[in-house]
């Protein structure tokens, strides 16, 4: 267990191990092969940030480049899944997902239901999300909440290399369509990852810091800021449970409610825009099912309701950080009726 690899390598390893195990697993997307046969560095680039690098050499035609036509290749992946393949399609940036909502929302998500359970759609759509990459308003959004809104989709948001590998393997083995969110700033994060294959079940949150004073519910990149805040707060005598949701559809309600019933205080940290997002969803869940336990109003830490700014200074201001999380925790601790 002592081996450390990056988040990006963990996803690559999951893809490689599942492609080796099951010949129905295929991969496709813009530049997923990328320049194969060219000289040196240009050979098999493996997607815009190199996540699928090396797969072409091992699996040949089972990984393919697609034209810049998301509606066509996402539709092809959904169709292939309905016909017995297990495609993993990469839609470079989640910001571009709008052009293929019909294929995702109206087709993939509905097949199992509308065919009376006689059809399955084991497609995985991998996509990059998130701010902090200086990529401006059209390449930085955090849109997982929109997919959690649609029944029939599973929505996965890993925060660590260990989770990225185990959740990707589960996503590929799962018989439902899975939207898999990869934060581009996390790609270089290193962590311990077992060499063997393993699957992390969906709907099972991880508790990454323990404490009885305040519950912090979060996901994706924000998990790291929340843990930093919890470590700082622990030195000041405030002990936080930090819950990493891992998947938002399905949602591990039990772990959230068990924690809030113990702490009586909730801070939700979410990188997506503040209206109709994961934070509001969790806040509503707790207000409805754990109201009696609450000792203070629920705090939500999110960006403001604006596009992601291109200016470095403004983008840094936009993304929630450990200081803002600590401030929110302090305010719920200090609340007096």
């Amino acid at each position, binding site marked *: *267990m002592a081996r450390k690899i990056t988040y990006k390598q963990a996803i690559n390893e999951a893809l490689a191990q599942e492609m080796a195990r099951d010949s129905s697993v295929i991969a496709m997307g813009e530049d997923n092969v990328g320049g194969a046969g060219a000289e040196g560095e240009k050979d098999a680039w493996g997607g815009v940030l190199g996540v699928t690098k090396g797969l072409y050499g091992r699996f040949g035609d089972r990984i393919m480049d697609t034209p810049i036509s998301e509606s066509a290749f996402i539709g092809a992946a959904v169709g292939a899944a309905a016909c017995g393949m297990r495609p993993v399609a990469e839609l470079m940036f989640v910001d571009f997902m709008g052009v293929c909502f019909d294929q995702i929302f109206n087709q993939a998500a509905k097949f199992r239901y509308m065919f009376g359970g006689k059809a399955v759609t084991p497609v995985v759509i991998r996509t990059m999300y998130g701010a902090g990459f200086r990529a401006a308003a059209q390449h930085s959004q955090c849109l997982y909440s929109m997919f959690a809104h649609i029944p029939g989709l599973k929505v996965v948001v890993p925060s660590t290399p260990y989770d990225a590998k185990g959740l990707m393997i589960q996503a590929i083995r799962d018989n439902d369509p899975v939207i898999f969110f990869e934060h581009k700033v996390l790609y270089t994060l290193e962590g311990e990852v*077992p*060499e*063997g*294959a*393993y699957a992390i*079940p969906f709907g099972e949150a991880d*508790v990454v810091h323990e404490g009885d004073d305040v519950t912090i519910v979060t996901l994706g990149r924000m998990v790291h800021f929340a843990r930093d805040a919890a470590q700082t707060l622990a030195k000041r005598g405030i002990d936080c449970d930090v819950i990493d949701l891992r998947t938002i559809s399905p949602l591990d309600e039990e772990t959230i409610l068990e924690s809030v019933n113990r702490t009586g205080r909730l801070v939700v940290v979410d990188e997506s825009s503040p209206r109709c997002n994961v934070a509001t969803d969790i806040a509503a869940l707790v207000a409805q099912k754990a109201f009696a336990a609450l000792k203070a109003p629920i705090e939500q830490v999110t960006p403001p309701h604006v596009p992601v700014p291109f200016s470095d200074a403004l983008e840094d201001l936009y993304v929630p950080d450990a200081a803002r999380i600590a401030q929110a925790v302090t305010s719920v601790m200090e609340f007096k009726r």
Partner: protein
Amino acid sequence: MSELIQKITMPKWGLSMQEGKVNGWLVHVGDTLRQGQEIVEIESDKIAGALESSVEGTLRRVLAQEDEVLPVGALLGVVAPAEVSDAEIDAFIEAFAAGFVPGEGSGADAGSRVQYAEIDGRRIAYTVQGDAGPALVLIHGYGGDKNNWLFNVDTLAERHTVYALDLPGHGDSDKALPADAGPAGMAQVVLGFMDALGLDAAHLVGHSFGGATALAAAQAAPQRVRRLHLIAPAGLGAEIDADYVRGFAATNSRKELGRLAARLFADEAQVTRALVDDLLKFKRLDGVPEALAAIAAALLDGDAQRMQLDLPPGVSATVIWGELDRIIPVAHATALTSAAVHVLPDAGHMVMMEAAREVNRLLGA
């Protein structure tokens, strides 16, 4: 004079430990330390325990303060006889600080590197530590791994060459099991491991299912066993917590695993979230649930142990048991009439963790 100065450093308990927190000293400056004496309480993110002294002499300096978090290998204290001056100790500390790079060097690190041996087409993971003295092969129990010996390996390695292996289906070893998943089949893997490492004979230390495996190895090849050290071994009686054995194979729930793991210890506070997390991570690996189910089936006949093993003639044995063992009853400790028996108070099934100092002493450290 500096050759008379000995250091106490942050131990490495388990493969993933990189730093530890000092929870408090059990000795004071001026005290005379004995080898094996518990001197300072240390906590990693996985486990808490007391560091045993590997040196003898007067504790001259305490450098690590309570609640301080320090990297593995960091200087915690200095031991030296009275004739060494304070100035010489200061110089020693200064030289150590100048040369210390966290995460580098140190004998403990070499031993924590996982190595692999190929046995019957199966990859078996192990660590080896110490290069003096007779070979000691540590065999963990059902659902365990080489890290179960984290409080033992360092101390034992002072006088032995210590091999800690992962049985098939466990740890970093391949998950495919021998056709016979019981002690006899596993014993062939252990003997194959000894062949691969060029060990004609060794002390076999087996815990629980690993104890039954060590006994089976002694039956198959008594001439290759210098001595058997059986720690709460299976195979000496009918009774066992069958619910634990089957439940551990079956469950994927953190809560249930925590509940089951608590039965392994006399002090349930030993079962931290990190410990349960590690069990969960092990159980999620492809092939592990099947391997555990196969071992459970080989181990159990209904709710009783399937196998009763005897000590082969000519092999001497020590049996060590925790008095509060809830998995296999301590009453089995006297089943081997010719063995030396040691029952340790305040310890459960994981007696080599809960009473590490005593167990290390009994193993000849």
